[in-house]
Structures are given as structure tokens and as C-alpha cells.
């Protein structure tokens, strides 16, 4: 069995990544499951998955439309084949779609969400609803495009799911009412909202840029396997759609603000915690990987090394051109960026904000400080859930504040981590 799915070519602007027209980035299943669960916890077991489906269909449609154009895929068969290939090459598993004129089914094997959920929780928790709203939305978008149906009109329901102990995931696909189009958040629109060049270089800039380029060289060589899964640095990751993450985040915030405003703060905390989850698992996994040891060096545990490493990892994964503005070990960390993967979406879709909105950046910066100060890297700790709980759920010694945000009219997004 050898690799067979060339990973689609990714372009970068200001360390934000794009596949076709669509903003993309890399995240692992810990983050993906945590974010989905946060949405479902806030909105409930019907509205949450419905939002996740709609977000997946919309973001996938944008991606696939640009790739169909680029590939000059004309026939339904060509378009479906392209969609199935793209899905696998992004590390989401294998999806076979058979829905002529928008009516039929799809079958998923090794689907990222369902399989990862079952691996992580299956032994101890019985799941009562399907996990693969993303795959459902992707399949619906592929059908819309393949048969020239009205955009965002097909519906897909996951009838069986491996997270619920089924042998494979199965979806029914049917025609539905089209969702109203929203403003596009594509490469050009992101570029228009992401000025750069006038923010001075940060600390350790040369080292960070060099490490980010090295990590990106590894990522460029990564291919999905026969199961449609991607492993990079020993960690299973997905190339995912920023539009998906952002819509489920900000639409959930908007709905909760309208229906249960007192819960907004709790929800924002959860979205910040998604940054902790990502940094602990993915950043930590990369820092401890043999790729890091060979290409960057053996970790010494110097806080400056971890902070610079974390910022380089963020750039490599397509999170934006994060910079270290200040770092006083044990005291203070300031990270800024001309744009995050969150801010352009918010600005385009929601306009100006009263409060800062880069929840992931906030949580990730705090988590980087925690990893830099509280982890004995030279002892090669195991990044277990128990260790995560010890580091992040036992009272954090840091607080984070976002002091600047593009969507408030600032020239950059900036977060400050200080002692709590």
C-alpha cells in the first residue's frame, strides 16, 4: 500500500493558507471534535448538527466550485470523482457519492470525525447521534455542483455512523430548498482585509520564518493514505476549511447572544479552550516529533524556544503571520498578527465588532505560554488527557486579553498573556 492521493497544492498569503479560492488550515481531531462538541452543547442536538451541516456545505461548495473550474471538470462523473479525491486528500476519509440529480446516497469509510470520535471516546461513551455533519455537508455540496443544482440546495442526512458503532457511515441525499448566499470569504476578499508590511518584525523573526518554512516543507510532502487520512509529524490532521470553523463559531455566538445572552461568556471560554486543545495536542505533538528533533533540534525547554516554536508552527499550519511582540519568560507574552484565520471571516460576514473576536488566537497564545512555562520538555512528557487536565483544568496561572482586533478597526490582532 503506497500513498496515492497527491495533497492538493496549497498557496499562502501572509501565512494564511488557501486551496483554490478557499481559506484552509490544518487542525487535528482533538480540536475538530472539541469545536463540534462546543457547538452542539450550546445549540442542542438538533440545531448544532444542522448548523454544522450548513457550514460544511457552504464552505465545501466554495472550495469545490473553484477546484472544478480549475480542473475543467465538466461531467457529473468528473465532478463527483474530483470531490471524492479532494475529500480524501484533505485527510477526511473516503467518501463515495452516488446521487444522480441530487437524490441518492453516500457511503463513508474511515471518516475523520466519526472514526476519531470512536477512537477517542468509543470505549467509554455511547454516542446517540451521528458525528459526520462535515462529510454530509461536503457530499451535499458535491452533488449540487455535479448536477448543476441550485447552490446550497441538496440535503444530506447521516443514517449510520461508525461513532455509533456502525461498520461504516451512510448518508441519504435528497433535494432541498437552497440556502441564501452570504458574502464570499475567498482568497481575494481575505487579502483585501489583511493588510501587511507596516507591522514591524517580531522577536526571533528569522528563526521563526526558517522553522515555519521547514515545517511547511514536511507538510507539502504529506499525502493521504488509502483510507483518506493524513498523518503529519506523527499526528493525524485534516486540511480543513476556515469557513467551516468560522461559521460554526460565529453563528453559534450570534444565536446564543440572541437566545441566552448570559451564556455567551461561557461559550467564548469554550472557543478559547479550543485553542488550548489544539496547542497542547498538535503543537505539542509537533514539538516532540522526530521531524522537529532532526530539522530544528532537540528541545531544551527554554521558554523562548517553545514560544518561538509555537509561533512558527502556527504559521506553518496556515493560522496567519503570528509574531512575538514581547516575551518576558514567566511574566508576559504578546503575540500579534496582521490577520488571523478568524478575523477576515468575521469582518466580511459580521462587520465591525464591539469586542475582539479571535477566540482561537486568544486561547492558543495562553496555551503557548503554559507549554513554555509548565512543561518539562527535556523529560519527554506524554501528552495525555490527564496531563492536559493538569495543565489546563486546574486553574490557569495566566490570563489572556485581546487588546487589538482588525474587526474593531485596529491595525492588527494582538493578544497579551499575563499572570492571573
Amino acid at each position: 500500500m503506497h500513498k496515492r492521493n497527491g495533497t492538493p497544492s496549497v498557496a499562502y498569503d501572509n501565512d494564511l493558507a488557501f486551496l483554490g479560492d478557499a481559506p484552509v488550515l490544518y487542525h487535528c481531531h482533538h480540536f475538530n471534535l472539541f469545536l463540534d462538541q462546543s457547538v452542539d452543547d450550546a445549540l442542542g442536538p438538533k440545531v448544532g448538527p444542522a448548523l454544522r451541516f450548513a457550514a460544511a456545505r457552504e464552505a465545501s461548495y466554495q472550495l469545490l466550485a473553484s477546484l472544478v473550474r480549475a480542473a475543467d471538470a465538466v461531467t457529473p462523473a468528473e465532478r463527483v470523482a474530483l470531490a471524492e479525491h479532494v475529500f480524501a486528500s484533505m485527510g477526511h476519509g473516503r467518501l463515495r457519492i452516488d446521487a444522480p440529480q441530487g437524490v441518492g446516497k453516500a457511503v463513508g469509510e474511515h471518516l475523520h470525525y466519526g472514526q476519531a470520535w470512536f477512537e477517542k471516546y468509543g470505549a467509554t461513551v455511547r454516542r446517540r447521534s451521528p458525528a459526520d455533519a462535515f462529510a454530509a455537508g461536503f457530499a451535499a455540496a458535491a452533488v449540487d455542483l455535479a448536477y448543476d443544482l441550485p447552490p446550497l440546495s441538496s440535503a444530506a442526512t447521516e443514517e449510520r455512523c461508525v461513532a455509533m458503532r456502525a461498520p461504516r457511515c451512510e448518508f441519504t441525499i435528497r433535494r432541498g430548498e437552497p440556502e441564501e448566499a452570504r458574502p464570499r470569504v475567498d482568497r481575494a476578499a481575505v487579502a483585501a482585509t489583511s493588510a501587511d508590511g507596516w507591522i514591524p518584525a517580531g522577536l526571533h523573526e528569522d528563526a521563526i520564518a526558517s522553522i515555519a518554512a521547514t515545517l511547511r516543507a514536511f507538510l507539502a510532502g504529506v499525502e493521504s493514505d488509502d483510507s483518506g487520512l493524513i498523518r503529519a509529524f506523527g499526528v493525524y490532521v485534516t486540511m480543513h476549511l476556515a469557513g467551516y470553523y468560522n461559521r460554526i463559531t460565529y453563528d453559534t455566538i450570534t444565536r446564543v447572544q440572541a437566545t441566552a445572552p448570559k451564556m455567551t461568556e461561557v461559550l467564548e471560554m469554550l472557543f478559547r479552550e479550543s485553542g488550548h486543545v489544539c496547542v497542547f495536542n498538535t503543537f505539542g505533538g509537533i514539538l516532540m516529533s522526530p521531524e522537529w528533533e532532526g530539522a530544528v533540534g532537540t528541545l531544551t525547554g527554554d521558554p523562548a524556544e517553545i514560544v518561538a516554536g509555537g509561533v512558527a508552527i502556527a504559521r506553518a499550519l496556515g493560522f496567519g503571520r503570528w509574531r512575538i511582540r514581547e516575551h518576558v519568560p514567566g511574566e508576559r507574552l504578546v503575540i500579534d498578527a496582521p490577520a488571523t484565520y478568524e478575523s477576515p471571516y468575521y469582518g466580511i460576514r459580521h462587520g465591525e465588532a464591539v469586542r475582539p473576536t479571535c477566540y482561537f488566537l486568544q486561547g492558543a497564545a495562553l496555551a503557548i505560554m503554559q507549554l513554555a512555562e509548565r512543561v518539562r520538555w527535556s523529560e519527554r512528557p506524554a501528552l495525555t488527557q490527564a496531563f492536559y487536565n493538569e495543565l489546563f483544568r486546574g486553574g490557569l496561572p495566566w490570563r489572556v486579553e485581546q487588546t487589538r482586533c482588525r474587526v474593531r478597526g485596529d491595525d492588527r490582532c494582538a493578544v497579551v498573556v499575563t499572570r492571573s
Partner: protein
Amino acid sequence: MMVETDSAADLCDAVVGGRDSPAIAGALRREHACRHGLLWRSDVAEPAVVVALQGLLGERCRRVGPAGLGVELFETAEGHGIVLVPRTGRLQLRIVGTTAREDREPVARALHRWLFGLVGVGVDTADAAADGGAR
């Protein structure tokens, strides 16, 4: 010791003394992974064995990932990953994610034995010391 040969197998015989060498490869330990039992670690203390492994892996496996960055990435015909850091001798085995959970350790042990069998190095068969638990 200078070895003049184009064959990685010859090189390895020369540096470790052939198939009957009593040399012991580093023990295999489970590393914490995002999915249980997929990452395994072994450390190669002898630089000559590292060199031999590099050569043999280049012949027997598919090379994946970029070259010249201080780490060598290979893939077996079954899709398992083998990652070698020549500078430190760290070796990581990455078992294919679809391998049944109960099969992962036996597969890792077999891969470890195969790997060091290539260079004629005996394998420490002591039980693996888990480096991290499952999640």
C-alpha cells in the same frame, strides 16, 4: 574503519559484524500518540548502525518527505512509517492508523524485529515500557 562498498547490506555487515552480531537494538517503547498504540520509539546508540539503517531503508522502503532536513522518513510496502533522526539515533515507527487496536503492538514489534534484522542486530525482547497511555 573504512568500508568500500555500494551495498548497504555489506556496509551493515562490516560495521556490526554480520548477522550473528550480539549487538542489541534499543528497546521498543510505546510513545504517546493521538491514537493509541500507533507510535513506537527505539533509540539506536551506535552511529554505524544508524548509517546502515539509512542505507537499507533507502533500498527496501519508499522514501517520503523532504530530503536534507536532518530526518529521514520512509514508508514500508504495508504503509507503516519509519522515521529516523541520524543525528540522535531516534527511531519512530508509525503504524498504519487502520490497524486494529489489538494488532498494533504485535505489528510494531514485528516491524522492529524486521528492521534490526536487516542490519543483523539483535532485538531486545523485553516488554515495552509504555511512554504514555491511550486516550
